Each structure stands twice: as C-alpha cells, then as structure tokens.
C-alpha cells in the first residue's frame, strides 16, 4: 500500500466537476483507492463518496492506494491534485 498527502489547490475545491473527473481517472487503475480527511475515509471510485468529503480550497487529504498498479495510480492522482484539477 502507498499513500501521500495532497492539498486541494483550486478555489472551489473538490466540487462536482472535479469529483467526476477524479472518479473517472481512478477507474483507469486496478488499484483500490481511498481518500481520507480528518479520519473520514471514502472510496475514491465513488462520486458520492468523493463529494461527501466537502474538500474546499486548502483542504489536506491523504490518498491511499492498494493494488498492482498502485505506484502509477498514485503518480497520476497526485499530479491531478497538483494541477488543481485543471481549474487553476
């Protein structure tokens, strides 16, 4: 299992549109993927789950991956957060 902490960078946070893109990106990988914020953990392949994180700008989130392509999945996801979900 691998994990890394990331910060939400776009000003509206992880709202509906980025949540949808994030779930689509996660679906490309076989690994299980979870997001954790202040002890609340959601499945990263569920749009409803990701939305309930209510992660606003500046929120710190731990990404956790488990599976054969976990390294690649983490790299892609961290990059997506760093790009501010392409909303910067």
């Amino acid at each position, binding site marked *: 299992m691998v994990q890394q902490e990331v910060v939400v960078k776009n*000003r*509206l*946070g992880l*709202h*509906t*549109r980025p949540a*949808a893109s994030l*779930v689509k990106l996660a679906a490309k990988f076989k690994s299980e993927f979870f997001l954790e914020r202040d002890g*609340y953990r959601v*499945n990263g*392949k*569920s*749009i*409803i*789950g990701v*939305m*309930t994180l*209510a992660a*606003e*700008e*500046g*929120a710190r989130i731990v990404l956790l991956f488990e599976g054969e392509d976990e390294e690649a999945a983490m790299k892609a996801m961290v990059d997506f957060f760093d790009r501010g979900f392409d*909303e910067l």
Partner: protein
Amino acid sequence: MSSEHVVVPDAAEEIVLRGIGASPGIAIGKVLLLEKDGIVVEERGVDNPAVELERLQKAIDRSNYELEKIYHTAREKIGDEKARIFEAQLLILSDPVFLEEVKKKIVKSRKNAEFVVSTEFSKQVEQLKRSGNELFKQRAMEIDDSKNRILRNLAEAKLKSRFEGTPIVVTSEFTPADAVLLSRNQVLGYVSDYGGARSHASILSRSLGIPAVVGLKEATKHVKDGVDLILDGYRGIIVINPSEGTLKKFRDRKQWCEQLDTELMTEAGKPALTTDGRRVSVEANIELLEELPLLRPHGADGIGLFRTEPLIIDSDSIPDEMEQADIFRQAVEAVEPNAVIFRTFDIGGDKMFVGNHSEQNPFLGWRGIRMMLDRPDLLREQFRAILRTSAFGKCKIMYPMVATDEEVIRANEFLEEAKKSLDAEEVKYDKNIEVGVMIEIPSAALMSKEIARHVGFLSIGTNDLTQYLLAVDRTNELVAHMFEEFHPAVLRTIKFVIDAGHDAGVKVAMCGEMAGNPLATVMLLGMGLDEFSAVSSMLPVLKKIIRSTNYKSARKFARQLLKMESVDEIKKSLSDYLKTRFERIYFTTLSEGDIE
C-alpha cells in the same frame, strides 16, 4: 351516530394559509398535487433479496431514463451551461461503488430496497450537510433528489409531468427540474410548503408571469387533487375549499387587479416625473438573466442592482473573467442606453463559498467588500469583467458592506490596477466608469458624506441597515417581529444619508426592499431620493405613484413623518395617504400585514 362524525365532502371547510407572495397575480382553479417526499419508507424483512435487487435495478434504470429526458429538455430551454445542474444527478445515479454498497446491504440485512436506499442515501446527505460550505450543502440537495427519484420509481409511481387542464400545482418544494418539466404545461399557479421569494423557482415563475405563493409550511397536508383553491400572489395567501362568498370576492379582486395591472403596464414606459417636474429614476434589481426580458415592458430606467453572487450559486463554480463579461454584456444590452450597476460579489455572512469555515456571528463577519479585499484575485477578475463590459454599454460598479472610507479607497486602488492591466493589453473600456457604495452599515451611514467624496453615488440597502441599526436578526424567530424598516431611527438615518450625499454632490439611490414598497414611495420621494431600485414587477406601481405626486407636497409630508416618534404613527400616516390617493394600488399590492 353522533353528527360530528359525519363527513360531508361537498361542504369541506374553508382554510386560509399564509406564506410568501413569490410572484404576483391571482389564480382560481383546481389543485394538482405533486407529491415528492411524501413517500413513506417502511422497514420490511424480505425472504428473497434477489427480487429486491431486481426491483432496485429497474428503478435505477427508470430514474436514469427520466433524468436523461429532463437534461435534454433543460438544455433546450435554459441552455447547456445551466442544464449542467442535472449532470451531477446523472453521475450520482451511475455511481457503481455506492450502488454496489447498497445492493450488498440489501443482501446482508435482508431488508427491502426502499429502506436500504433511503438509509444509505440519507447518511451521505447528512455528511454533506455537516460541511459549512454552501456549495457542498447544495450538492446534498442533489443527492436527496436522486434518493427521492429512486424511491418513487421503486413504488412504480409515475412522475406527473404532463396533465390535463390548467391546474394550480401544489408541492413541498419546487426544484429546477420541476420548473423545467412544468413549463411544458399550462399552469395557473404554483404553491409550495418551502422556499423563499428569491429561490430559483420563484424567480422563474415571476419571469413566466405565473402567480405563486411559497413558504406555506403545510399546504400539501391540506389539499388533494381536484380540490378548489384560490392563490393570491400579491398578499401571499391561499384559500383551500373557498366558499361561494369567498370565490366571488376573489373573482372581483382578480378582475380589479388585472385591470389595474393592464393600466399600469400601459403607462410603464412614461418617465417617473412628478406633477411639478422633478424627475427621478426607477430601476430594477436583477438576480437572474431570465428576468432581463421583463425590464423594458415594466419601464425600468436601467438596472439599479445587478447581484453577481447568484452566478456562483448557479454554476457551482466562480465564473472567470470572460464568462462574467459574457453574462454582464447581456444585461447591458437589455437596458441600453441606460446603465447597469454591477454589485461586486456579496458573499459571506450566511452564504459562504470561499473557504470552509463557520462564524459565530456571520452577519458581523467576513462578508461583502471585506472578503473581496482579502481575495484581490477575485475582485480584480470581476473588475476586469465589468470594465470589458463597459465598452459595450453604460456600466457602474458598486461595493457592498462598506464600513469605512478606507475600504472604498483600497477597492478603488484595485480598480485602478485592473484598468492599467487592461490598458497594457489594449482592451477598450469606459475610462470614466462610475463607482458607488452601498450604505447598509451604521458607521458608513454616519460617514456617508466622507465616503461620498471617493465615489459617484450612494445606494441605501434598507434590509441590512435596519438589521444593524435595530440589532435584530430577521431570521431569528424570537426577535424577527422587532425588525421594522419604518422605525423612526431607520427613516432618520435614510434622510441623513440622502442629505449627506447631496452635500457631497452625488446622487443617492435605494435598492433595499423599502424602495419597492408602495407605502414608502411618497416619503422617499419627499426625502429627496434620486433613484429607486426594486423588483421589476413593482416598477409600474412606483412610477404611477411618482407621476401622480407633487414633489413639494411630498417634501412637506416627509418632514412631518420625520418628526414622528412611533412606528405606529408613521405607518398609519403612510397607510392613510396611500389609501386615500391610490386606493386601488393600496388594495392590490400591499401585503395583508401592511393593511391591518
């Protein structure tokens, strides 16, 4: 058998319910009840979970099909951008992880699909509601809507989207989806348990010219399909099972109101000129672009308040400079050659979109210009959008929630920066664009002369000014009755601001609720107010009053009112004045509370 248990369906009791008049007009017709959250979910053990799984899948497929159709209609009716609100619901309905979880729970708990769907969705809704961020709370409504849709399809109940005749539709709360679906039918009026005058559905009904009363709390409990109902959108009341006498009264009232409306609308294009030649400006407050087509027919002399924060709420994002400029341009084109006053984002208070924090005292907290000065990135972008728009028509800029002149100076500096950046890019704009300030905080009211030195106009916001002057939070039921915009302290403050503005050589406007209240029109005119800005449906009424009034006598009347020391005395004088001189306006447009 005792007679009190005999139910006589034909002689059902007349019930009067009071709510909020969301769209003016009177409708008399039969009820069509649109049930939504009325689905009672039972907890039931099941022997064969496979049957439940199959039912659930069918309900989900059916829900998807319905939503696809709504999405399609919405794109035709309100455009791609706004139709996106339905995309989120489509995504929710196709969340494989979540739905798999629901199915597993059905198998494991051996409970009926309704119960598990309801419990699991509600957990997510609660989780979202706990977040302090307004945008995320909005998403909770979408998840809730998806839940209700699946539940209804589990009950194999059809969505009532097409129906015979022309009913008055009654429901718990209108969603944008309802508004889209119902717009394909002939509807006499809308009635709902929840919602306010500024909700989406209310604004939509105003622009469609359909009378509506919202916020009735339990209208759905008292009606059934086919029941007779009277809806009075002026006074915000409904009458269920009206007696013959009541029906006659309202038929007469309807005729009388419609006649007055027609007369007022015919004259709406004439200038707001008093009988002795004082010209004032009567402008519109705008919330949504759907309202723009109403402006010219209602005789608006421009837009006195264009609220920009609904752009954020509607699109689930902060529109960038070019998106804002596109929207602003539509407003400018709708009123040219008149001006549009764009108020910079008034967020914060109870509407938090930036960041995720809650405040003990939001109305005394980080809101309006305070927040924007802390987020110059947003302010600069908005300034640039307004400046770009000014190349196509007359624009003005207004700052909300100003407490001191330093805030105005700082905001003006950001505006200068924005101008310079556009100069560098050789973008055209109106170099003399006028800037104004909303006067809604007591400190700003007292310092309005000093503040006026830095701007071209002042605009009084009566709702917040009243709240801060009287220290009454209107949303707090325990003290709401103390909220009184006709309090002598409020009136004297308004007069002080108008005089201070005039001393400094600037015009003074009002864009709060009082500006649209016919009771106050003559008084405000007499105090010397230069510009009235109100919901467009009220503009013909204001113009009629102004055009029939002598400015000199209005001044005298205002002087008398300003000497009065009690609310009752002030309100009685205003009420008597309107009743004697404008009897029909008095009985048509005033809410019952004002009349009593």
